[in-house]
């Protein structure tokens, strides 16, 4: 009887531990799903990159920078700082996306004019781009101007440097980004965790 009880206690302990571990795992998964769900609602700035780029490609190519959504506010300014490997990529400039800052029947559709300097970017390996609506809101990003599917804010134009080799991996890391509203509490910014980012990764193949 004493042995049976002793053996049963061990079984109970093992079983209880297993149940507890399962519960903890379930909780973790549950919380993780919540976080995932929450993050999936947050606007995300995405550096779209192809799966692989041939090292023999001599032409220029572009990488889309898109936004998943915007908040309720209007955003008269936006900026982003994207680090890249300047020894393998040469940044050539910015091409237009399809996110407008103004669209109406009378004046048509207006795309933002981004400020940047390619020389500085290539020297520092950091692409600093900014749009500023000097009117404070007449030409601003807003949810109502987004398309239903893809919203490309801008396109980064690159060319591979001669030093690039097959197998190189070039990360494009968004170090800072903000879609700024006049009321800063409504801004979408990495610094305030109201904007998430998805960095790009460019794999150079044969």
């Amino acid at each position: 009887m004493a042995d049976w009880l002793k053996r049963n206690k061990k079984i109970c302990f093992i079983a209880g531990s297993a149940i507890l571990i399962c519960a903890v795992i379930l909780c973790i998964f549950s919380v993780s799903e919540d976080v995932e769900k929450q993050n999936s609602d947050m606007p995300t700035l995405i550096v779209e990159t192809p799966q692989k780029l041939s090292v023999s490609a001599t032409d220029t190519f572009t990488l889309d920078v898109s936004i998943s959504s915007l908040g309720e506010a209007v955003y008269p300014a936006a900026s982003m700082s994207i680090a890249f490997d300047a020894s393998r990529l040469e940044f050539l400039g910015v091409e237009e996306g399809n996110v407008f800052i103004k669209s109406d029947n009378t004046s048509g559709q207006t795309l933002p004019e981004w400020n940047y300097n390619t020389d500085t970017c290539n020297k520092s390996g950091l692409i600093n781009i900014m749009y500023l609506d000097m009117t404070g809101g007449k030409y601003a990003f807003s949810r109502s101007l987004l398309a239903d599917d893809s919203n490309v804010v801008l396109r980064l134009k690159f060319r591979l440097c001669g030093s690039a080799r097959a197998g190189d991996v070039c990360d494009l890391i968004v170090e800072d980004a903000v879609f700024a509203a006049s009321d800063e509490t409504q801004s979408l910014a990495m610094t305030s965790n109201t904007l998430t980012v998805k960095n790009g990764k460019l794999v150079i193949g044969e």
Partner: protein
Amino acid sequence: MKTTKKSMTMKIVSIMLSIIMIAGILPIAVFATEPSDTAEYVYISVSYDDKFKEDKNGKPMAFVPVSFEELEAVDLNDYNLSEYLYDEDGDGTYEITALQLIIYAHEELYGGDFSEVTFTGAPGSSYFEGGLFGQDENLNYYLNGQYPLAGSGWGATSDQIVLEPGDVISLAGFTSWDFYQDSGYGFHYFADGEGNMTHKYTAEAGVACDIKLIKGSKDYEYNSVFFDVPDYTVYYGTELYSETGSVSTDSNACASITFPTAGTWYLWADGGYGVEYPDSIVSAPGYAEVTVTATETEEPREAQDVSEVLDATLAQLAATVTAPAFGTDAGEWTVLSLARGNYYAKDNKYFTDYYDRIVETVNTTAASVNMNGALHKNKSTENSRLIVALSALGKDATAVGDWNLVEAYSANGMDWIKKQGLNGTIWALIALDSNNYATSDATIRQQCVDAILAAQHNDGGWALQANKDYASDPDVTGMALTALYPYRDQEAVASACETAFECLSEMQHENGTFASGGSECAESCAWVIVSCTTWGINPDTDSRFIKNGNSVVDGLLTHYLEDEAKFQHIVGAGSNAMATDQSCYALVAYDRFINNNKALFDYSDVTFSASTYNYSATLGLPENVENIDGAIFNGVVSINGWDNEAGYKLIDMVVSVPAGVSVTNVTAGDRLEGGALSYNLADGKLRVVYFDSNENSDITVEGTSFPTALFNITFGVPSAMGGKLDISVDEMSIKSSSDSSDSDSIEKINLNNAKGNVTVTEQEAEPTFSAGVLYTGDGVDLIPASKKAVAVSATNLAGTNKLIYNDGTNTIELKYSTDISEKLGVATYIALVDSAIAIADFENADYYTVGDTSDSVTFGDINGDGVINAQDALAAVDMWLRKGDAPTDGDILTANVNGDGRIDTYDALGIVEAFVYGDSEYAVVTKATTIFN
């Protein structure tokens, strides 16, 4: 048997016909003129009801002159009216009577045939029964406005009205017979000032002419009377019955008419309706002529020639001021007159010797004052006066000896400029514009303009007193007007100056002079003349500056002492050097004006010595360094411009470094690109070279704001070393090629201000402070004019220390500036403070309390999140757009990245530019490196 005048008349007629035949070939206009001698004429008016009757040519018969010769031609015998021949005085000669005039008028004027007129009665009681002037018998005639009497109670008929030269017969017919019985009956006439009947007025065009309307009538005893005719319409025009206008007589029967143009004008009043018979015209019309002459204007005043006085005064000055030197008396003002008066050529030894003396003085004085080329700690006018004189000689004030006199305005700011009040501001502007000098602080000129406009007194002029209710002073008003002239395109300036000239005009005395401080003085007249000539106004002929026939030039000349060729401050007080100087350059200004030369302070006609330098460099150093077991400090070499298109390939520089001092690092300025830097310190000389040895690239500078840092030098001071360390950039050049024989391949840099000193204090534990003004609010965009941003460099502070300023009145917590501290290598704090606090107070260590940890500010990081991005740029835009609350002092400090006196879109663009160009330096940081030396 009585003789008639017929034979004589026939002779006269024969002669007249001969004359007429001869004269027939003469221009008709000759006969169209008015009778020159009214004594030989009588006049007749014929009316019917309310209007004058038209003659055979359709012209109203009003006051028509008829000569006696013409009347003599009317022989009653020819009309079978011999019995009406009338010899009133029994001298055997028949008189000329009104009957002849009426016959003449009927036939010659009206074009009728008198034989068809029924003329009945007997001599003395004749009667026009019908047909005269196409009318019936219902007519009446007056002589000279009076009922003609043959005797008491007995009217005279036309055959016995003897005409005298100048007589006027008024004949009126009426439709209604009621006129006889109505009290309104009579003949309208115009009257002179005495109330006497007149048919002639004279007037001046544009000047009111007084007239009066009367009515000649008779009482029941046939006594003639004249009545005033009040409330009656009088018409006027250049033709009778073609009215230009009308007036109504007042209760005194008077009216005033202003005839707009010269020439003959006509007045008329219609005949009127009766009083008792209001449906009947019972009075005859009136008529007068007005000879209107052109407005009497004074002969246009011809600008007087003052060359005799001017030449004598210039000669006197040249003879007595033989060695002009730096100073108010016998100095710059005399040079100004002699230079602008073209007394000496610019290369005359008189001027070159003066310049040599000036260079010596400037080198000594500017070094002593040690305020970026300022010649006096408090008097900016010392610089201004000298700049004005040197520029008149074609000398570049940016390179006088070792100093740039112009930089003092930017470096020391409005605090220094305004220390002498409005005078300083005005003269700074005149000096800067004398040669369109560039300023490193691009806002200085506008700050001066705004300050002058803000100081305008309520009466429209300017004075040194701050209270705008005080009466303006002509001298200061004239100076302000002169200073503002180059800015006349600004609406506010144009408006202010228009008012100011009106104010000046009102200040002028009857003798043409102006008074300052209650005394009519030469200097006041002088400055009115200078300001007028600057603005293109002739002070000798413009009516605004002429009173009682005396112009301001006349007023000035009343102060002239011919024997001495000098001017008096006040008439009778004897000659005065200042009065002579100012009067002389005022006469130079006037003489230049009337000879169509450039204005006194418009030096666009002066040939300036070709500037040796395209660029100037400065060396920014901390004023004090504490040496506690060794110390380091930074020196920043900046340049005031750059041409990215010039193809510069290399910069080299030699810096004198005091013995014992090391150089621990040298870096290129953030905005400098295209080269690599090498340096070496040997024998007390730091040699720096910047170029691209591999690709020989062009050296460029990012951005457009200047000055910008070229090199940052970190000096090391060994322990136990103290004293004043002099550091200077001795050589610097920018080369575009290696061809040393090509002078265009090298840009030499003006190094006058690329020097300074650092006071190293050993073992000094207590902090010391040096302070400067970063900028002063201009009151336009968000930064009040009452606020200025100060930077305080503090030694012996870690930089994380909290620094609180308290002078007993103001308590201010300063913010640690990361950017400026890193730049200068010395902990530097900034704050937005009341402009009234003297900058020297911020250098008083007694006013500071040092705490534990300070908040730090980073320019451009307006929201203080540690990242400068679009949020900050937008914040700057929103501030300027006035969205949200007014910015705090902290907001202003971080947002005003270009360091001017306002927050505007330039700051937003500055943030964008800094973001895009990486870590390039804000203008406000660059400026901070220049304000401590």
